């Protein structure tokens, strides 16, 4: 008999009720809407000045992930974000926002710079996932994602991450470990795409909608599960309907979150961030442990 807390029971009840199912699929579509604002659309509205930092100092400049020094409300920050393309040529150049290992190495370089010079880090998460190609694998995609996550764990500067579109799996998380994690109302965040989940569990990627209903990649679910700190509202119809208004809402939320992150003493921040993620997860307890061996 697995004993769980009352809160787990409430969560289960709530999710079993299958409320808001139609919103789930709306969010999946809005998060992927080709007119949705991307990192650079917000950067040009949030920052008064910016200098793009390019290259991983090892192999290439991966344009699926961008890093910059930027001035945000009078202070310098390091901004890191996935970047999708608008037209076909930009999409190809930016690999639809799916970084190779070089993109994550660039992100780590930006984190290291922020740490050394004491600048807060703002990240913008919007990727279907890390690129799953042969070359990416050969150059250590998995290990680089792990090291990117580690570099975000290690930083002592304030970090605010916002999921602004697709928060796809490890490729998203690689830049999403932060003191405060925000998520736009119509963004999604999940361990796998609905199609991928459907292909594996239903053996039919056409069952994506069913998969999405089951695993709930929405901001509401992420908030309920304690994975994000706040949902950032979007203009009616979605962020693409009024990019300036969406940017204003995002700006207010990030600014507030940054103030909260800055209140943590620098010497405590690394440990506090670790503790925040340590608490993520839900489990029960049985009375009888399985037997020891040996």
């Amino acid at each position, binding site marked *: 008999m697995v004993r769980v807390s009352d*809160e787990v029971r409430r*969560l289960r009840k709530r*999710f079993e009720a299958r409320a808001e199912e139609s919103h789930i699929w709306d969010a999946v579509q809005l998060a992927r809407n080709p007119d949705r604002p991307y990192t650079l659309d917000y950067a040009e509205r949030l920052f008064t000045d910016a200098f793009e930092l390019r290259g991983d100092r090892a192999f290439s400049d991966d344009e699926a992930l961008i890093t910059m020094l930027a001035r945000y409300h009078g202070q310098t920050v390091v901004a890191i974000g996935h970047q999708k393309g608008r037209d076909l040529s930009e999409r190809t150049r930016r690999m*639809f926002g799916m970084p190779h290992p070089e993109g994550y190495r660039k992100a780590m370089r930006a984190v290291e710079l922020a740490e050394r010079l004491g600048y807060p880090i703002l990240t913008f998460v919007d990727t279907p*996932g*890390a*690129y*799953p*190609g*042969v070359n*990416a*694998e050969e*150059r*250590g*995609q*998995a*290990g680089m*994602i*792990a*090291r990117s*996550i*580690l570099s975000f*764990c*290690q930083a002592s500067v304030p970090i605010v991450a916002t999921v602004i579109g697709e928060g796809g*799996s*490890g*490729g998203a*998380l690689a830049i999403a*470990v932060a003191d405060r994690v925000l998520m736009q109302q119509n963004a999604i*965040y*999940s*361990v796998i*795409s609905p*199609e*991928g*989940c459907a292909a*594996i*569990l*239903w053996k039919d990627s056409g069952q994506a909608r069913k998969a999405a209903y*089951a695993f*709930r*990649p929405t901001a509401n679910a992420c908030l309920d599960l*304690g994975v994000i700190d706040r949902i950032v509202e979007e203009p009616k119809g979605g962020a693409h309907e009024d990019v300036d208004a969406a940017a204003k809402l995002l700006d207010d939320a990030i600014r507030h979150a940054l103030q909260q992150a800055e209140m943590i003493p620098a010497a405590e921040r690394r440990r506090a*961030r*670790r*503790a*925040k*993620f*340590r*608490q*993520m*997860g*839900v*489990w*029960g*307890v*049985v009375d009888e442990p*399985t037997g*020891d061996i*040996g």
Partner: protein
Amino acid sequence: MTPIEVNIERPGGEESGGRRHPNTCPTCRSHYREDELRHAQRVCPHCGHHFAVGAMERIEQLVDPGTFVEIGSDLRAADPLAFVDIKPYIDRLSAAELQTGLGDSLVAGHGRIVGRGAALAVMDFAFMGGSMGSVMGERFCLAADHAERFGVPLISVTASGGARMQENILALMQMAKTVGAVDGLREAGVPYISILAHPTTGGVIASFASLGDVVVAEPGALLSFAGPRVVEQTTGEKTAADFGRAESNLRLGQLDAVVPRRELRGELAKLLMLFSPAEDEPTGDNEPLMTIVEGDANPIDKVLGRLGLGRRRG
């Protein structure tokens, strides 16, 4: 659009199609009695193929007899999403526990290896494909806690298809959580040895398993973020026969060594010696059973309180 988590091939190099008996070697077709195979550490005496090893059997292979103490064995998945695909998650969990005798896909604990203490986190692919969910992540962290508290190295042995989709975003967060545990070890100057068994893919290799101070793999193990099938289906690229295999990973700079299973305990003993203080002699490991106490309070996040959940009180 990019499925990252992997519906992983069964261990071994068998062709698709016709099921084989688990004790038939997929490489050379030799067949063994269970006791023979177990005695051979599940390495085919004829061709050297490495069969899958369960978590408890792996611990027996590595740890001095009578020294292993499990931690966190009473944790069980709680299914907060009330997840149902073709079957309910709850039913899959029960079936896995019945089949393996384990409460989840990772066994945590501590023990001695040739006299030197170590914390252990050992995965079992037979439990839902070694998938990483909340319990696995917490158990890994408990092993890391032990290592940090007693200043002994952490050793993990992984075999996983990736994150557990049934816990969705909570499963993803276990990547951050386990990497955070490694960060704690790094901050404390405690060594971490990662052993990669076949297969270690998806969220596990993209988090803690890649972050060992020393990373070694078993021969032939598939070690990749996306599995070859996902790569081919998503990108249309062909994958070579050695795609993602331990030997390729060694050549490509991702591993320190490929170590045959029969040499693993010896290599671990050497590493534990190298990681021990100067002139240290192996002695009895007399630390008390771990008592889990409250971690540092998180000054930002009130999730724990809100959910009435979180770190187990021992």
